[in-house]
C-alpha cells in the first residue's frame, strides 16, 4: 500500500526535467532532421503564391554538405586549431594539476586561483582582450615580439591561445579535484619503496587520473569542433578570418545571412555526427590502450 502511494512521486519530481527535455532537446533535434531532408522547390519564375513549395529531398542536403569545398576548408582549419588547443590546454591542465598536488610547491593557493580565474571571463570578453593585445597599435607583446599576430600565418595560433587561456583552469580544476580525492597513504607506500615524486606522478597519479583525463578530453573535443565565439569576435579586428572560417560559422551564415535553412540544418547534423564519432572513437582507442579491453 505504502509503496504504491509513493509510486507516482518520482515521476512527478521528474516532470519539469522531462517537459524541458522534450521541448528544448527532443523536438528541436527532430525538427533539424526534418529540415535537413527538405528543400524549397521553385516552379516557373518563382513568382506568386504556390510557386515556391517545400519538398522532401532525402539525403541530398547531406551529400551537398559533404561535397562542399568551403566546408572542407573549414574542417581542415578547425582540425589544426583543435589539435593545437587540445594538446596544449589539456597538457598544461595536467601539468598544473600534478604540480599543485605535489607537496613541495609554495604559493599553491594563489597559483590555483589565478589559473582558474579566466574561467570567469566570457569567451567574447577573453577574445576581445587578447584581440586588443594582438593589435599593433596597442600590443605590449609587439614591443617584445615583432610578429603580426593577426596575420594569415599566425591567426590559428593566436586564436588557439585564447581558447587555451580560457580553458586550462577549468580542466586543471577537474583533474586536481580528482587527485585530492586519492588517499595520501597510497603515495607514502610508493615513497617507502623509493619512488621519486616524478615516478609517483607518472606511475601512480596519471593512471588514477585516466578516467578524468578521458572525460575532459571528450568534452573538449565537443566544444572545440563547435568553435564559433572566438573567430566571430576576432573578425572585426582582422581581415584574415572569413565568414566561413569554422563549420559552425558556415551554418550560421547559411541559416541567417543567405537564408538557406535546409543546408544549415544538414551541415549542423554533420557537425554533430563528426563530433560524436570523434568522441566515441577517442573513447574506444583510449579504453583499448588503457584498460586492455578488446
Amino acid at each position: 500500500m505504502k509503496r504504491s502511494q509513493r509510486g507516482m512521486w518520482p515521476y512527478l519530481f521528474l516532470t519539469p526535467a522531462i517537459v524541458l527535455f522534450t521541448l528544448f532537446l527532443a523536438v528541436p533535434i527532430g525538427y533539424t532532421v526534418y529540415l535537413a531532408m527538405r528543400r524549397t522547390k521553385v516552379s516557373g519564375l518563382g513568382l506568386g503564391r504556390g510557386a515556391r513549395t517545400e519538398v522532401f529531398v532525402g539525403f541530398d542536403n547531406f551529400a551537398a554538405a559533404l561535397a562542399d569545398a568551403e566546408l572542407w576548408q573549414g574542417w581542415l582549419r578547425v582540425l589544426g586549431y583543435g589539435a593545437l588547443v587540445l594538446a596544449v590546454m589539456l597538457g598544461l591542465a595536467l601539468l598544473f594539476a600534478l604540480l599543485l598536488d605535489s607537496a613541495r610547491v609554495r604559493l599553491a593557493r594563489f597559483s590555483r586561483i589565478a589559473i582558474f580565474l579566466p574561467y570567469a571571463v566570457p569567451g567574447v570578453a577573453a577574445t576581445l582582450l587578447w584581440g586588443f593585445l594582438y593589435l599593433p597599435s596597442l600590443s605590449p607583446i609587439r614591443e617584445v615580439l615583432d610578429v603580426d599576430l593577426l596575420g594569415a600565418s599566425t591567426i590559428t595560433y593566436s586564436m588557439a591561445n585564447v581558447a587555451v587561456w580560457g580553458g586550462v583552469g577549468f580542466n586543471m580544476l577537474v583533474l586536481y579535484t580528482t587527485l585530492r580525492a586519492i588517499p595520501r597513504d597510497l603515495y607514502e607506500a610508493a615513497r617507502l619503496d623509493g619512488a621519486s615524486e616524478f615516478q609517483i606522478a607518472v606511475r601512480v597519479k596519471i593512471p588514477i587520473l585516466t578516467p578524468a583525463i578521458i572525460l575532459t578530453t571528450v568534452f573538449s573535443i565537443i566544444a572545440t569542433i563547435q568553435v564559433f565565439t572566438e573567430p566571430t569576435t576576432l573578425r572585426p579586428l582582422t581581415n584574415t578570418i572569413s565568414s566561413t572560417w569554422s563549420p559552425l560559422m558556415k551554418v550560421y551564415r547559411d541559416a541567417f545571412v543567405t537564408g538557406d535553412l535546409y543546408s544549415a540544418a544538414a551541415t549542423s547534423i554533420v557537425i554533430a555526427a563528426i563530433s560524436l564519432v570523434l568522441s566515441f572513437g577517442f573513447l574506444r582507442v583510449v579504453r583499448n590502450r588503457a584498460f586492455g579491453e578488446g
Partner: protein
Amino acid sequence: MATVTAATAHRRRARAGSRGPAGLAPTALLLVGALYCLFPVAWVLIAATKSPGELFSTSTLSFGTGFFDNVGELFAYRDGVFWLWAGNTLLYAGGGALLSTAVSAVSGYALAKYRFPGRNVIFNLLIGGILVPAVVLAIPQYLLFSKIGLADSHWAVLLPQILHPYSIYLARIYAAAAIPDSLLEAGRIDGAGEWHLLRRVAMPLMVPGMVTIFLFQFVAIWNNFLLPFIMLGDDGKFPLTVGLYTLLAAGANQPTLYNLILTGAFLSIVPLIALFLTMQRYWKTDLSSGAVK
C-alpha cells in the same frame, strides 16, 4: 618570534629535504602559469583607466587618468544601453541558474532516492543530452520560438538554458551521498508525505551542492554567446556578451571607441570575478563526497 620563524623554516627544510630538493622549479612553473592567466585581466584593468589619448601614448603598464570619464561615456553610450545589457545578463544568468538548479536538484533527488520503473531509461536519456552539440539545437530552437512569436524575447534566451543535463548528473551524485536513506525512512514512519520530505529533509541537505550547481550554471549562461546571438535582434534585450560584440563590431575601425570597448569588457568581467573570489569553497567539480569542504 625570530626563533619561531627559524624553527618553522628548519622544519620546512627538513620536510623538503626528506623528499629531495625544495620545489623551486614546480613553484616557478605554476607562477608562470598564474602570470599568463592574470596578464590580460591586469592589462584591461589598466587600459580601462586610460583616456583615448593616453591609450596610445603612455606605457602599457602605467595607469591613466580617464577611468571615470570612460565609465561615464560608456553609460551614456546610446542612451545607456550598457545598463540594459548588464540588467539582461543578470536576469538571464540569475533567473536561468535559479530555475536550472531547482529542476536539477529535484530530478537528482528523485533519481538517487527512489526505485521505480523507467528510472535508468529516464536517466540515460537526460544524460545523453550532454553529448548533443549546441549547434543542432540553436537553429531549430530559433525557428520554433519564431513560430510561437517569442523569438526576439527574453523567454527565448531564458527557457532553453534551464535544462542542464550535467547539473542533473551532479545533483544525483550529491543527493545519493548527502541524504541518508534512514532519515527518509524515519520521516515516513512518522507519517511525513513525500512532498514534505522533499521540502523539509532533502532540499535543506542538498543546499551546498545546489550552490555549486548554481554557480557553474550562472557562469555558463553569463558567458553564453551563440544562443542570444541567434535569438535576439533588438539590442535592448542583449546580454553583455552580444552587446560587447556589437560594440566591437561597430568600433573596431574607430580607435576613438577603443577605450569604450575596453572599459565595457572590464566592467563585464568584474562581477563574475568578484563572485568567483568570494565563493571559492563552492567551486568543486566533484560532489560525490557529499560535503563541500
